[in-house]
């Protein structure tokens, strides 16, 4: 019984992790940025969805939409206020920019965490589910919302795939992740490509945040763990590799779910961290990474 429960729950949570991690790996692939305020972005989106749905009668769908928009705005703010000034700074040497971006986004996430816990306290918040009700999936009583979560996640990942493979803008993004200088030589404005990438990232991570908020609930205290989860997933899958991130999302999602059910929910991230250390030692480029 528990095994089936883990199978079903793990599938939904992994799909959701996948959406967030794909965005995370996308900005790394295209602009070389590791965003340590990733967890903050997800929590901002979830908290906005919860707050507007409850206090402004926006309803579950209106709240979710506003939450995703908040994610978009937050991502663009992160890029324009923190990442771009550091990348363009003349006072910082090139080889040090990476660490400055990491430190800068870490501080930005910390500020967000404090602001959320000040405005809304650090109590866990649960976003209204999009659809109420419970159905039976292979003998497990499952909330309809959990199925919707998995469906939406996979639909969005599919849309992203079509966007990258079939549209002109998507192809330029893909090209920029392979060779940024080559793309500029072909006459594309790199700064516009970055902006588009960050916007897509904001939508993806915002969606993941809202879905997570409806599924497990979030609080300002979960920001660090969420960033660590996303970071683990993309490193496990190989930095910059989208398909690797999706596989890794399932590995991480299932390990976490199994741990939460069989050991204790409080240590759900521990085995993943151990696995991560092992992978980094043995195969630093991850499952499908390129060096």
């Amino acid at each position, binding site marked *: 019984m528990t095994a089936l429960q883990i199978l079903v729950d793990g599938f939904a949570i992994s799909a959701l992790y996948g959406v967030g991690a794909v965005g995370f790996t996308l900005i790394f692939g295209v602009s070389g940025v*590791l965003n340590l305020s990733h967890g903050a972005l997800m929590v901002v989106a979830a908290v906005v969805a919860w707050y507007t749905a409850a206090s402004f009668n926006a309803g579950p769908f209106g709240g979710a939409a506003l939450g995703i928009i908040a994610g978009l705005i937050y991502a663009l703010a992160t890029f324009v206020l*923190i990442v771009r*000034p*550091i990348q363009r*700074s003349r*006072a*910082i040497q090139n*080889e*040090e920019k*990476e*660490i*400055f971006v*990491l*430190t*800068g986004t*870490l*501080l*930005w996430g*910390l*500020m967000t965490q*404090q*602001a959320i*816990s*000040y405005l809304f306290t650090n109590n866990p918040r649960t976003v209204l589910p999009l659809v109420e009700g419970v159905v039976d999936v292979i003998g497990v009583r499952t909330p309809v919302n959990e199925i919707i979560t998995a469906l939406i996640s996979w639909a969005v990942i599919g849309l992203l795939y079509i966007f990258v493979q079939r549209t002109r803008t998507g192809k330029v993004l893909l090209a920029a992740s392979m060779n940024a200088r080559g793309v500029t030589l072909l006459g594309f404005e790199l700064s516009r490509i970055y902006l588009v990438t960050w916007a897509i990232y904001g939508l993806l991570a915002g969606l993941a945040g809202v879905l997570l908020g409806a599924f497990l609930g979030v609080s300002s205290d979960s920001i*660090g763990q969420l960033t*660590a989860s996303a*970071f*683990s997933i993309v*490193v496990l899958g190989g*930095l910059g590799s989208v398909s690797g991130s999706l596989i890794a999302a399932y590995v991480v999602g299932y390990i976490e779910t199994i741990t939460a059910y069989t050991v*204790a929910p*409080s*240590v759900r*991230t*521990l085995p993943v*961290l*151990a696995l*991560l*250390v092992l992978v*980094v*030692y043995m195969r*630093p480029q991850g499952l499908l990474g390129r060096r």
Partner: protein
Amino acid sequence: MRWLKPGIAIAVLVVLYLLPFGVSGYILGLLTVAYYYGVAAMAWDLLFGFAGEVNFGPSFLVGLGAYTAALLNHYEGAPVWLCLIAGGAMAVVGGAVLAIPALRLRGPYFGLVTLVAVLMMQNLLVLFAGFTGGEIGLDIPSILTISDRWNYWYALLFMTISGGLMFGLSQSSVGLILQASGQDATQAAALGFNVAKHKLAAFCVSALFSGLAGAMLVFYLATVSVGTVVDLAIGVQFIIAAVLGGRRTIIGGAIGSIFLIGAAEILRPIGQLSTFVVSAVALIVILFFPGGFLGVALRGRERA
């Protein structure tokens, strides 16, 4: 002009050593913690500023020292000096373990390993809370001394000695080789320097002082908990202190951490928001004055 910098340093130190005769015990207590944090920040700067290794888990090394000392004292009743030595030694072992991936991995990968090290330590300490005290903390039977003044002097002396040693190391030929291998390891190796040996040494020195700072802090606070020595937020505070004070200066870490503790105290009336304001200030400094306080001061004088 050659005597200006050492002159200022000595004058500041004399003032700091005489401070207990002029200010209240409360301020001395704040500064005592600031000095221990300062040592951890300086040790971080030795790794990042000179060896070029991004360590996101300085609190891993500090925590190792702190918990080794605390557990020995709590369960075995070991004398303070033995606990301090054991704490420092354990941190060196931890530093060597961290150094192994650092020699193989670059940039974000190594940063990730250090981040994971802290998160794992935090999780394990909470999981075995029955033994370690977890988030509530473990009480420590021994303390260094009950006198505010002597606690302050111990901390200041510890900071002066470790700061002096690390600063000396950074200015020596070893420091130059470290800096070279941090910036371009291949070229440094081509010039005949043993990059691995120097980096390993930097890790061990940095770990030793971090661990000692953690162990001393335990005997000052008379308690040890995840929130005071291991939490990621504590580690971030060391990093912020070192970057605020000025990277590649060693001493910047001490200045930054005194500033941070002071700022937190001044901002105490606004409560929860104080961390927000401190992070914002640190962010602004990083964006506009990446050289930190010392960077601004030194550059200002060059222009004049």
